[in-house]
């Protein structure tokens, strides 16, 4: 009864449902893509579904990672996903694996099991190359999805002679050209659309349907609700991994290859001297009568800010935009003695960069710029727990 509405379709039938039951799918990432993908695959009655994720549930995940709820905060995402999925379909064997996917761990998993499909719901470039390479080496189709802000992309790599990720993107992008969801933001239904389509492609691969999205890339633009299906190049005979003479014959260090980490967390920088920084606690005592520049983007400043601070985005400082305005602001405060300007941002990284720009640009006036260590995150943690962390 449970599967009757899909089994009466000529595309599935009894046979198709048996295929589903006999298949094994592995989903990397229990986030914005992995959640909806897992949900539909579990509902459809796939025999065994392995879910891999190293991360814990955070409040800022819940708008898009629909398997997790408020009571799951700080729990491993794979455990939270397991509990939800099990309650939906207890016939499916669900294997939660709390693990960071890297060359060693993923190799073991994939070679010890015979997965029919790998679903890429990861959030970074290094993991995408890793999954591509392991899929090619083990001859498994890779259902690849990604999403950012209002846009999503979907394709199937290494399927029936089609191209792999490296055929299309032989070299990783420069790290500074990559935006992650933590910085760029993403809308829940945009992830949901792509994750759901990943489940669809997985089901089509398992049931041997025609029309699998191989050699094509689907571009989804949520802002105009348009889908574009574009034709990709075919498999490259000179591809480093799936070509005729592959140069990559075992898994490599993908963080090194991509010059970026295999997660989407922000790595903190430390570029200033100790005497150019103040602690959040110390800052809280002087904030009321000091000149404080909050260098976050305007949209973030509008969400929450400390009263009395002035928003002057780092993007302007970096490019030297609106410098007359800043000059006026500083000159208004100008006195005989050197005075202090405090620079603040979300985590304390852009504010360091801003201090380092500003001290050079305004070296001719008696002003000293200070970075507020750890930014608003530290302020919320150490001074005012009511101040929102995002």
């Amino acid at each position, binding site marked *: 009864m449970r599967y009757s509405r899909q089994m009466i379709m000529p595309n599935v039938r009894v046979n198709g449902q048996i295929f589903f039951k006999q298949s094994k799918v592995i989903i990397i*990432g229990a*986030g*914005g*893509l*992995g959640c909806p993908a897992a949900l539909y695959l579990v509902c459809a009655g796939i025999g065994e579904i392995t879910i891999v994720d190293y991360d814990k549930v955070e409040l800022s995940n819940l708008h898009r990672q629909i398997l997790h709820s408020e009571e799951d905060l700080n729990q491993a995402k794979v455990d939270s996903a397991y509990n939800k999925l099990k309650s939906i379909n207890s016939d499916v064997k669900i294997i939660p694996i709390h693990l960071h996917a890297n060359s060693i761990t993923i190799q073991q998993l994939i070679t010890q099991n015979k997965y029919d499909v790998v679903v*890429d*719901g*990861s*959030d*970074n*470039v290094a993991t*995408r190359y890793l999954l591509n390479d392991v899929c090619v080496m083990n001859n498994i189709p890779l259902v690849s*999805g*990604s*999403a*950012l802000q209002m*846009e*999503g*992309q979907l394709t199937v790599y290494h399927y029936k002679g089609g191209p792999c990720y490296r055929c*299309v*993107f*032989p*070299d*990783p*992008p*420069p790290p*500074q*050209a*990559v*935006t*992650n*969801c933590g910085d*760029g933001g*993403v809308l829940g239904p945009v*992830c949901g659309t*792509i994750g759901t389509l990943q489940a669809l492609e997985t089901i089509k691969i398992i049931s041997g349907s025609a029309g699998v999205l191989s050699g094509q*890339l689907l*571009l989804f633009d949520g802002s105009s609700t348009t889908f*574009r*299906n*574009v*034709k*990709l*190049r075919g498999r490259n005979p000179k591809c480093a991994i799936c070509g005729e003479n592959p140069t990559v014959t075992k898994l490599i260090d993908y963080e090194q290859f991509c010059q970026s980490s295999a997660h*989407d967390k922000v790595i903190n920088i430390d570029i200033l001297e100790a005497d150019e920084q103040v602690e959040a606690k110390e800052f809280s005592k002087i904030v009321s009568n000091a000149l404080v520049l909050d260098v976050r983007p305007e949209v973030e400043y509008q969400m929450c800010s400390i009263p009395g601070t002035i928003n002057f985005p780092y993007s302007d400082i970096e*490019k030297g935009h609106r410098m007359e305005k800043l000059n006026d602001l500083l000159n208004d405060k100008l006195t005989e003695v050197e005075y202090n300007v405090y620079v603040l941002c979300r985590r304390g990284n852009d504010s360091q960069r801003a201090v380092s720009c500003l001290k050079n640009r305004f070296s001719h006036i008696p002003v000293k710029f200070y970075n507020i260590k750890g930014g608003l995150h530290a302020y919320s943690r150490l001074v005012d727990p009511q101040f929102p962390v995002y």
Partner: protein
Amino acid sequence: MQKDWILGDLLIWLRDNLLKERPELFLQDNSVRPGILVLVNDSDWELMDTVNYPIQSKDTITFISTLHGG
């Protein structure tokens, strides 16, 4: 008779006329940087000889940046 424009010419023109900052995030070694997909009428430019493709009247040329979030 004007000379034919190939895609490579367009890239240079875009860099010199439209890009205001950090051209290296668009162009590298006279082609697009890794992670940008160029489409001619919704097909990968790799299928039409990339920078050497002679642009035709009414062609639609699109630059897609790959996404990695999820």
